[in-house]
């Protein structure tokens, strides 16, 4: 079930909320159990058989976690930890990476190993990572003993289940154990609905429209059509915005939905395209994944504690594996590797640049533009189905596939159309007659996207402002009238555009 579907918004969510709060008045454990069952139903709506997989995974990790906590600091505890993490990774590899591994072997060794073609359970990367963190923290005695219901709810909680944020047990399970979420709160509803409306609008009104430009370009590139300069940039930038609005929209919806249940989820995005360097970008983009990779991969590898060379190697390993986590394809590894190189360059620059002067505004703008450009190039690998597609787009972006100009049917231009293709200027229209909406819409969309990304506060800042305003004795008129009216308008416009249900990009990861 998708957040941006009528079944979810008009059926699942109201029922889940009503029963949760009704049961919460009687017995909080019962309410938590209901929420867990509802979350499993939410997951099972997509594929009932994988509910068993999710249940088995949660039960296995819960009982392993308890056993590890009992033997924490001992050899048997370490062995248990290694064994249970290994089992989690085997499950993840079986479902997500087995065919990638087999096809890679077939490609390298010219063998013909049969692919398994197992359907990828949605969200497996997310629920595996949250549980690995739990196991490690049980060994470190950070995780205290939780009830199974709360643990199951932590793993399966539907707002985060299929595309994050990647939760840490210490920030979510104490909330389930407290009494606050089980009482309906108008304040939580007001903020939750506002954040949900913003997220839904980001996804339905903006991201899906950017997809109408990105998808035809990448599809044509995959089909071997040489992508010209303008089309390549349109495709790459459209995807850059699409991914941001899609994924941050999903995260906003998850945060807003959870807020309706009185549970606060961690933020996942903080205006990443406002970053002026790549290090900052990774502090703002998919923040919960960055946190996980730092705490459970980079630090255990040694972090920056074992010399400069080792630090570079650790960073690179972390980014390569981070790339692979996103999908079973070498293009994701290349994307991770590219960002690893960016980070190494950035760290190198940080160590040599003079720190005495604070950057000027033009300097900041230049740094921001360079960072954005680097990110756009990275997304080409992230989006492309294979290296041929990525190379095609990158060649187009650098002008090596020729330059197109808008097709003109009028006299002089029509003659030119026939006379000068040999100059490399091809009059085919800037998007090579791809099935994209009009140029005017593209310009409106790009300007809107740019304004929202660079000139507006992000959802988290809006939510924090609302929290502060609602906590004060006097709520300004703007927040009492204009903000809810705008949120209602966005919610309605998004609902009216939801006829064409589209999946969130991060579901595949």
């Amino acid at each position, binding site marked *: 079930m998708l957040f941006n579907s009528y079944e979810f918004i008009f059926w699942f969510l109201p029922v889940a909320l009503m029963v949760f709060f009704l049961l919460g008045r009687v017995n909080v454990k019962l309410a938590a159990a209901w929420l867990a069952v509802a979350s499993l139903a939410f997951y099972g709506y997509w594929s009932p058989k994988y509910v068993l997989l999710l249940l088995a995974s949660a039960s296995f990790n819960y009982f392993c976690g308890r056993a590890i906590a009992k033997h924490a600091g001992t050899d048997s505890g370490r062995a248990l930890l290694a064994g249970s993490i290994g089992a989690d990774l085997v499950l993840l590899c079986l479902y997500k990476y087995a065919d990638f591994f087999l096809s890679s072997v077939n490609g390298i060794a010219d063998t013909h190993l049969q692919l398994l073609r197992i359907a990828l359970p949605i969200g497996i990367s997310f629920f595996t990572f949250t549980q690995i963190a739990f196991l490690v923290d049980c060994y470190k005695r950070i995780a205290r003993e939780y009830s199974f219901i709360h643990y199951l709810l932590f793993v399966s909680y539907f707002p985060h289940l299929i595309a994050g944020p990647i939760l840490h047990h210490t920030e979510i399970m104490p909330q389930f154990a407290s009494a606050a979420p089980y009482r309906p709160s*108008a*304040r939580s*509803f*007001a903020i939750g*609905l*506002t954040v949900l*409306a913003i997220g839904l609008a980001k996804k339905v009104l903006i991201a899906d429209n950017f997809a109408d430009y990105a998808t035809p370009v990448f599809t044509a590139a995959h089909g071997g059509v040489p992508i010209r300069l303008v089309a390549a940039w349109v495709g790459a930038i459209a995807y850059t915005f699409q991914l941001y609005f899609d994924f941050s929209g999903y995260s906003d919806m998850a945060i807003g939905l959870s807020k309706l249940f009185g549970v606060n989820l961690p933020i996942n995005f903080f205006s990443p395209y406002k970053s002026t360097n790549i290090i900052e970008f990774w502090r703002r983009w998919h923040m919960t994944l960055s946190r996980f990779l730092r705490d459970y991969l980079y630090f255990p590898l040694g972090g920056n504690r074992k010399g400069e060379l080792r630090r570079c190697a650790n960073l690179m390993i972390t980014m390569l594996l981070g790339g692979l986590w996103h999908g079973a394809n070498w293009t994701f590894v290349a994307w991770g590797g590219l960002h690893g190189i960016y980070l190494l360059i950035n760290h190198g620059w940080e160590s040599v640049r003079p720190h005495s002067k604070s950057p000027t505004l033009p300097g900041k703008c230049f740094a921001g533009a360079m960072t954005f450009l680097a990110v756009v190039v990275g997304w080409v690998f992230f989006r492309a189905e294979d290296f041929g597609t990525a190379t095609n787009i990158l060649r187009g972006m650098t002008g090596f596939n020729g330059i197109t100009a808008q*097709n003109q*049917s*009028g*006299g002089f231009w*029509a*003659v030119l*159309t*026939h006379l000068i293709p040999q100059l490399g200027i091809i009059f085919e229209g800037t998007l090579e007659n791809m*099935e994209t*909406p*009009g140029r*005017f*819409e593209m310009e409106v969309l790009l300007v809107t996207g740019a304004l929202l990304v660079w000139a507006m506060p992000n959802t988290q800042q809006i939510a924090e402002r609302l929290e502060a305003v*609602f906590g004060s004795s006097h709520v300004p008129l703007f*927040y*009492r*009238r204009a*903000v*809810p*009216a*705008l*949120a*209602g*308008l966005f*919610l*309605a*416009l998004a*609902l*009216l*555009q*939801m*006829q*064409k249900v589209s999946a969130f990009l991060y579901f595949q990861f």
Partner: protein
Amino acid sequence: MRTYLSILLTAAAMTVLCSIAASLIVDPYRIVHRLIGELSFKPNSRVAKVAFLSHSCSQYDSYIAGDSRSQILSESNLGDVQARRFYNLATTADDIVSIVHRLNHLIGRGCPISAVVVGESIDLFMDESARSAGSLLLSENPAVSGENRISFYSKYFLSAQALVEYFRFLYEHPSRHEIYYPDGHADYLWEMKDDTPFALAACRGSKTLGAAERKLLFAKLGGYREIAGMSDRYHFKTIVWIVPLNEWQSELFDDPDVKDYLQQLRAIPNLAIVEAERNSRLLSDFHNWHDCRHFRRTVFDQLVAPAVSGFLGHSTERAMPGVTENTSSGIDDH
């Protein structure tokens, strides 16, 4: 806080209600309004035409079917129609399978059918993705498709998509009007304005079919066999005319697959096939074209109509002058 929530929910409800009201009033696809008069937006003529015929089919006994190329034709273009009363059932991007479904629906409602004139385009292919991309324009009337009516109407009125597409189209094509007449045919009020020799040259298309197109082309034969069977069962004439292409696109007829397809089409019994002269000067003069793919009536009147008229008036066993002799059928007048 309660005021905040009430304003939010009221604003959302009001916006949704306003959008539904606007969609119903404007009804850009002509889902609930009758398809008649000058329109600045391409309607879903499948829905409107079937809806009209559901209560008026007794006024007609013959049908012009096909895609948008056939939509400009009326009884007057067919010459001597032997006292038949034609309704133009052609719709945007239509195909023979949908035509068969629609005719079956009409037969099921007891509508009389004496002749069907089908325009066959060998250069237009609609796969599933193309159909779904144009779903509002191309959706079949639920009475024919059996689609749930709530789900069908919600696409047009519980979503702002129809209005968004309407305003987008008005912005991009402010002068692209069409006039619809009570008998279902339409006038296209746009034309190629460019008088350079390259106006039609810009229409140059592919000279051969791709693998996917080949598959879609041959899949149509099943539909033609079905309509030929219906012709036999319900005693009506079916005349299929192959849509002429402009000079720059007509090389497609030389594609071996197209030749093979046409040969198989000609071999289907109970169908009369009309093929226009390929080298006519009419096809290379941009004055005879609305755009690259849509010819003006002159082309049909001069290249196709005489043969169609001949088949309408006579048994198809007779050879027609000026066209490729092509049928093996034994259709009788009924």
